[in-house]
């Protein structure tokens, strides 16, 4: 097998590969680069927020006059940064990392498959992702700048915006296509290519989370595809899907016939975007479950309720979208329906989190670096989830809608939530991919600094929102309330810059550790799941012999066993 692999040239092995492991690494590197870029955009914004109207240090002198005025940020640039930060982090950062990288690399290994069901489709997914990402990035170089109507691109603002918005729409079409193709691949792989003996309820929780995520991507993205096409038609062909009659822009009537509805965009957008937020969190929950089970040396508590909760959550995520639209003038009937579904959907989330927490009871807990991130995920996701409660009810939402409270809420879930889960996954599976362990003191430094500064950024935002400061403001001090609590804004900004610096130990660790001479053991975490049944890195085709599964995924500390872990791919003598 390795001979035929050696025959392939560099391009076929590393650039146009159909091997899920190579594609997973490609996704991972690309996504991490995009995440870092998205972080840089935000750091510039945080300067303007903390020191409104002041020239940006160093960078201010380098940017052109369409972006800055004497080094100080212009409102147009601020709005572009905001829209692109959100878009890049969500669609080009987290989803490709959580699903494209971790999913692609780990799923076939963890189910004992030689590769994904459709390797060439897999490669096509990655290529569509890269094209979409490049289209998005290239929009920064347009004369009118990148998209600037928020990652939510509400019409009519987005329809009358500069060309950057068209690039955003085209980029989205490619990114959506990438996710759709990937979703098909994941679902067929998980259903069809499980190893012998690997029944559904012996699957690691990570696989279940990827399966549900794939269904969400498959079924929720098409309406946004439609919406993007409608918006392109409105922008380029002067149709009026989202343009009502009688619009003016800058005093002049807009050249559209009218008869359309701005709220139609919102319905189509949020029909995707709500399931999308579950896409953002579920793979992370899956990784946290794996790391916690492994480092508590006992089975997960409530594995079955967790799986059923996952399935129920996936289904319910299609029924709550209009809780993003409570303030659009909706009547009591519709808002009642969505408040009820929103309250219902909090229950499976609580169940999953509670099961993970209870899994710690009666455990024997080790604290390697991945476990630190996985443990921190629990309270951080807890805060994020809990702050969703006042937002999910329409009456309190009247105060919190479009304030910093919302920004704090979703960042708690995604930043010290999902991103910590991603870090946990990187530290945990690094030895599988590279054959080396990451340096532990650097890892612990990375963890503690990140934990402190994540909270330093987002906890002040909860209070800013409570005070009534609106989001997406180029200069919040224009308002009395924003001026009164400006200290909170400055605190968030400094924490953001320090958080960025805190990633340096991680970056150094990530690259340095690859070149260590000392190799890690084959199964350094004494784990029970199938990805550890093969060599490091796994060969082309993953397993020399197709593995057979004999037990559940978390057989740790089995009474009477010879060691404190019983891998599911080894038959235990009873």
């Amino acid at each position, binding site marked *: 097998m390795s001979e035929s692999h050696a025959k392939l040239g560099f391009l076929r092995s590393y650039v146009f590969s159909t091997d899920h492991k190579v594609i997973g690494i490609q996704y991972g590197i690309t996504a991490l680069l995009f995440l870092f870029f998205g972080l840089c955009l935000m750091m510039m914004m945080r300067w303007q927020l903390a020191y409104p109207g002041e020239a940006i240090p160093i960078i201010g002198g380098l940017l052109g006059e369409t972006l800055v005025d004497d080094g100080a940020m212009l409102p147009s640039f601020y709005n572009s940064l905001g829209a692109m930060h959100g878009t890049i982090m969500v669609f080009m950062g987290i989803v490709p990392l959580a699903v494209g990288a971790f999913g692609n690399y780990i799923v076939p290994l963890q189910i004992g498959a030689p590769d994904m069901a459709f390797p060439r489709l897999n490669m096509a997914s990655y290529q569509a992702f890269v094209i979409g990402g490049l289209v998005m990035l290239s929009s920064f170089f347009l004369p009118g700048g990148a998209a600037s109507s928020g990652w939510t691109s509400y019409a009519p603002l987005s329809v009358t915006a500069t060309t950057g918005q068209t690039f955003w729409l085209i980029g989205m079409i490619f990114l959506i296509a990438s996710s759709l193709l990937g979703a098909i691949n994941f679902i067929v792989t998980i259903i*069809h290519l499980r190893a012998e003996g690997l029944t559904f309820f012996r699957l690691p929780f990570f696989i279940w989370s990827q399966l549900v995520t794939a269904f969400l991507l498959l079924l929720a993205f098409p309406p946004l595809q439609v919406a993007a096409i409608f918006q392109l038609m409105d922008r380029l062909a002067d149709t009026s899907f989202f343009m009502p009659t009688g619009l003016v822009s800058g005093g002049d009537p807009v050249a559209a016939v009218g008869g359309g509805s701005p709220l139609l965009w919102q319905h189509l957008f949020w029909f995707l975007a709500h399931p999308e937020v579950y896409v953002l969190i579920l793979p992370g929950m899956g990784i946290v479950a794996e790391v916690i089970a492994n480092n508590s040396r006992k089975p997960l508590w409530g594995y079955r309720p967790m799986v059923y909760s996952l399935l129920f959550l996936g289904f319910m995520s299609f029924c709550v979208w209009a809780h993003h639209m409570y303030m659009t003038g909706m009547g009591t009937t519709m808002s009642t329906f969505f408040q009820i579904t929103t309250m219902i959907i909090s229950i499976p989330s609580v169940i999953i989190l509670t099961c993970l927490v209870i899994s710690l009871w009666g455990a024997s807990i080790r604290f390697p670096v991945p476990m630190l991130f996985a443990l921190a995920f629990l309270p951080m996701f807890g805060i994020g989830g809990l702050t969703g409660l006042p937002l999910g009810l329409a009456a309190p939402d009247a105060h919190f809608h479009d304030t910093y409270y919302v920004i704090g809420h979703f960042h708690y879930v995604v930043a010290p939530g999902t991103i910590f889960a991603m870090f946990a996954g990187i530290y945990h599976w690094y030895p599988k991919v590279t054959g080396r362990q990451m340096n532990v003191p650097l890892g612990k430094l990375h963890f503690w600094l990140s934990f402190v500064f994540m909270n330093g950024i987002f906890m002040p935002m909860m209070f800013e929102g409570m005070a009534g400061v609106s989001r997406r403001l180029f200069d919040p001090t224009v308002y009395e309330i924003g001026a009164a609590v400006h200290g909170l804004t400055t605190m968030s900004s400094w924490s953001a810059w320090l958080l960025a610096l805190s990633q340096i130990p991680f970056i150094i660790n990530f690259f340095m550790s690859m070149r260590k001479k000392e190799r890690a053991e084959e199964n350094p975490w004494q784990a029970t799941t199938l990805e550890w049944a093969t060599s490091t890195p796994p060969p082309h085709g993953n397993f020399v012999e197709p593995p057979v599964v004999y037990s559940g995924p978390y057989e740790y500390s089995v009474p009477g066993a010879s060691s404190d872990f019983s891998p599911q791919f080894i038959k235990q003598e009873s």
Partner: protein
Amino acid sequence: MSEIVIPYRTEPHPLTGVTSGKLGIWLFLASEVMLFGALFSSYVLLRVGAAEGTWPTGVEAGLNVPIGTFNTLVLITSSITMVMSWASLKMGNPGAFKRYMGATIALGMLFLVVKGFEYSGKFHHGIFPATGWPGASDPSTFYGFYFTITGLHALHVFLGILVNIWLLVWGLALYKTEPERFAGRVEISGLYWHFVDLVWIFLFPLLYLL
């Protein structure tokens, strides 16, 4: 590189009863249902929410029902020939496969040609996607919908034709070495083609008749 053998490419999986390719196309069609569902829902939402008399029926908007009906029959017939082409393969008759697949492609192209006539007729009368109906006061974006929805559908037909041409001209070589696998590919393309036909069967009454 593709030395690794991925199971269930040609034999069905015991749980689902189908090959991986077939499961894959069914999943793809599920996403397409969501796509066209969103299109239809948007049309319904805007039309139901609009004021009395601002949205035309198909006839009022100048859509030609006999031509639309003809196109519907063309697509339905092409679905039949598509099934026949697959059945020919299963019965070991590649010659019949070629004839039926050729007919499917030809009928698909006929659909697009007729569509082209319909579009150019509209353009001739000064009706474009941006045109409002009825006129200046209280217009609706019916034509925006008409061109966008039928355009997207036509794009799907076009892509289906391309796949079928590939199967007929280049793909057939696989029949000599792995007839079951090739028949599977034709079946998968057939499922997609039936779906595209089904969408039109909903589109035609929605736009032309209601």
